[in-house]
């Protein structure tokens, strides 16, 4: 009986925690301020992460987005994970961002960054970032590089290879 009570308590705690976690999200979209996002830019495991800052209104971002999707597909087996960080405005999440994710059937993990105090967090992403998007970080446990530029698929693969063949 004691065990059952404890189990129920644990179950409740677990369920409550889940609910709290969901509350921070906007339906199915993960939304973070910079403090919430920062751990995703500094994961210390055996994977290589490719993090792309983009927005649905940013034409060069939309142009290169399929390359990041392709990279996520082609290099999954090599322990590479793509993270797409959307800088869409919050009121566009429902109108633009979520429909875009669905229509394009994006397979990479998408999170939204909602943190208007950009002068505080931009230098924390990279000291050299002037703030233009698209911008990309590639990192793993042995290195990190930042790019304030657009990519072709070939350029992206070439950069990634300098990380996974080390």
């Amino acid at each position, binding site marked *: 009986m004691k065990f059952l009570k404890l189990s129920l308590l644990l179950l409740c705690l677990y369920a409550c925690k889940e609910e709290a976690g969901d509350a921070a999200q906007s339906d199915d979209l993960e939304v973070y301020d910079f403090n919430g996002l920062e751990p995703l830019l500094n994961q210390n495991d055996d994977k290589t992460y490719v993090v792309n800052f983009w927005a649905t209104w940013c034409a060069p971002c939309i142009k290169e987005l399929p390359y990041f999707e392709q990279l996520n597909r082609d290099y999954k087996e090599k322990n590479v994970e793509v993270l797409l960080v959307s800088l869409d405005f*919050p009121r566009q999440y429902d109108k633009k961002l979520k429909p875009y994710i669905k229509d394009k059937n994006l397979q990479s993990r998408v999170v939204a960054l909602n943190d*208007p105090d*950009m002068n505080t967090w931009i230098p924390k992403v990279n000291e*050299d970032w002037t*703030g*233009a998007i698209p911008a990309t970080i590639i990192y793993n446990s042995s290195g990190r590089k930042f790019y304030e530029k657009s990519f072709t698929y070939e350029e992206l693969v070439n950069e990634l290879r300098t990380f996974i063949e080390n």
Partner: protein
Amino acid sequence: MKTLKQIVLLAAVVLMASAFTNSTDNPGYDIGDVATDFKLKNIDGKMVSMANYTDAKGFIVIFTCNTCPYAVKYEDRIIELDKKYADKGYPVIAIMPNDTEIKPGDSFENMQKRAKAKGFTFPYLIDEGQEIYPQYGATKTPHVYLLEKSKQGNVVRYIGAIDDNYQDAAAVKVKYVENAVDALLAGKEVPETKTRAIGCSIKVK
């Protein structure tokens, strides 16, 4: 000896190549540099240079455009800056740096329309040859360069964002550009000379 020469030559080539391929290398002005004047076409068809402003103490030069959502968010605040500071000697000069074939929404005609619709009180110039923005080192819209007139020329005193909240003008805590102009007007040091904000990359072919 021949091989040594070849090695040195090769090393030099590699070094030079790496110097030119650094993607984050962004030349352009830093605080204290003298900014170049320009002669660019305004929406009324007339050419505008900073040299035309004999009475100005300096300039709030803003690279901006019609099509970038961040630039649009700041339109009203740019108008307010001009209204507040033009009479005090620091007029706004807006420059549209994008290639208009890539961004037809930023064409000269569309610039004229937007300026009229919003009631811009300041020149809205087109950087037709895209030769001015790279000299400044602008990378995105909106991107502000606050210049102070001196005997040496127009000296860069502030580079960066307009304020610290693009989403909501009412929630702004720090007005970077206003603080910088106020400091110059009071003969003081600019409190924060460089800030950063997300913006739309300047469109080039």
